[in-house]
């Protein structure tokens, strides 16, 4: 066993796990506040990446403008989705809303193919390119900087959850809707807020994922791994999203290095099955039966 190699692979896994954690956080935010299982999370990520592509590569905006613009535009997209697709289904059975998000994913893929074609594209390089060495281990610079950005955003979200009124309102609404109404929290607006924030976080992950591996209309499959992450971590657990993200990142990296790339998904799903057998609510999920 080559320990240095193992270390290097694990490090890469942890770094890409940070991206999973960020995207999983976007998912958990919506689930916690609104109990909607958003299957389209991968496609929202893709939408964010394509918006960034439009602003930076097609309209040639400078980066400092293109990135915030893409994130903001994704927030608007999130608000529109919530108002037009999700809000009218308030009070419908969870399975209906779930199926609608499946459809939403397809619609987003279709829109991307109409607007930008199905070709694979490259995002402009904007991350530093000098290699990162941790001890003797080499880390791809894009992966490293992606993880740093993801970590910053995760920290910001945690701070906002803790101190910002909207974050507190979101936690309160997640905990008890009637009580939230009774203390003057505008619950429907919290629902919007959750979707907007989720879409913006998804956009950030989409931009990073896209600048590492390029963008295409099929990059929504990234969402598949994100779903594994949130199910492993527990659908409504922020901590679960973070730890699940890192865990799945490492598992994928190890499987990819030692078994071959085609075993990545197999390995993560095996982990998923194993964890669900021991802890049906995920590692940190609330113990309640969720029927879908």
């Amino acid at each position, binding site marked *: 066993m080559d320990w240095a190699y193992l270390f290097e692979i694990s490090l890469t896994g942890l770094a890409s796990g940070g991206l999973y954690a960020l995207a999983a956080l976007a998912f958990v935010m919506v689930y916690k506040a609104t109990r909607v299982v958003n299957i389209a999370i991968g496609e929202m990520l893709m939408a964010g990446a394509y918006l960034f592509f439009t602003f930076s590569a097609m309209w040639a905006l400078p980066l400092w403008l293109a990135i915030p613009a893409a994130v903001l535009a994704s927030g608007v997209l999130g608000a529109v989705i919530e108002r037009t697709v999700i809000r009218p289904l308030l009070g419908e059975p969870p399975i209906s809303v779930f199926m609608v998000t499946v459809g939403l994913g397809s619609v987003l893929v279709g829109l991307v193919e109409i607007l930008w074609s199905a070709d694979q594209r490259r995002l402009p390089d904007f991350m530093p390119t000098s290699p990162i060495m941790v001890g003797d281990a080499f880390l791809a610079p894009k992966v490293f900087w992606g993880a740093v950005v993801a970590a910053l955003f995760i920290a*910001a979200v945690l*701070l*906002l959850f803790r*101190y*910002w*009124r*909207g*974050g*507190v*309102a979101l*936690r*309160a609404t997640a*905990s*008890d809707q*009637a*009580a*939230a*109404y*009774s*203390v*003057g*929290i*505008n*619950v429907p607006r919290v629902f919007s807020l959750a979707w907007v924030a989720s879409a913006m976080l998804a956009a950030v992950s989409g931009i990073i994922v896209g600048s590492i591996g390029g963008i295409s209309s099929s990059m929504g499959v990234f969402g598949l791994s994100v779903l594994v992450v949130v199910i492993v971590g527990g659908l409504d657990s922020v901590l679960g999203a973070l730890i699940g993200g890192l865990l799945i990142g490492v598992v994928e990296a190890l499987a990819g290095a030692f078994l071959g790339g085609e075993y990545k998904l197999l390995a993560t799903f095996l982990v998923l099955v194993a964890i669900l057998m021991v802890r049906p609510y995920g590692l940190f999920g609330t113990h309640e039966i969720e029927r879908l």
Partner: protein
Amino acid sequence: MTIPQSPPAVPAPLLQVDGVTLSFGGVHALSGVGFEVQPGSITAVIGPNGAGKTSLFNTISGFYRPNAGSIRFQGQDITRLPAPRRARLGLGRSFQNIALFRGMTVLDNIKLGRHAHLKTNVFDALLYVGRARREEAELRRDIEERIIDFLEIDHIRHAPVAALPYGLQKRVEMARALAMQPQILMLDEPVAGMNREETEDMARFILDVRAEWGVTVLMVEHDMGLVMDLSDHVVVLNFGQVIAQGTPAVVQADPEVNRAYLGSGDVGELRRKLRAAATPQGAQ
């Protein structure tokens, strides 16, 4: 059928419920309910199980929209206002089945009562400077010095609410409602399921809330002893209708109230009453 309320020069009522009718499908939960809550009073709504007391509470606080009738608060028509707006206007409430933010501490729960009054924005919060820090400090002082001390829950302030015994949870709920700085405190069965000692504590708190904060109290309660001891005004509901209202003495002497509570033994009359309750009518 309102019993005339005589004291001269009554101040303008704080809350006016007028002809409120609420039905779920064909079931009339409330028909033509009307009463007033005077500022500074303790008003109780009583009635047998299923009389519509909680439905009335939910209508007043905005969880249900009445099919007819109006609700006025401080002279303003609030019938169409959504629940959070009403909360901000000054209607604080507790719930029969306790609606606390489980997973948060007692202090966090109480602080959320003040939520609607805070103005901290995203950037303040991210940096935890300026308004965020100042508001947090002010909030802490007020809540810690006044509400927590007052309700004697100092020892549990950092405990997660889910782990507390029932009586204390009820008290935390009341503390959260008080943190909203309400004009009117609506308590849905504040002493249900409490032992004698806890009930006496709660009775003392209710009286003190009025005395120290000048908060008007509207409560739904089954404990007749508590209701008769504390209330200035009692409203009796049966099958969704007001069958009597007035001072505790007046209500206790009302033959209709006794029948509603003890049953008349006359099946024919019961049937008439059911039918009357089931048909939509002006009631008055």
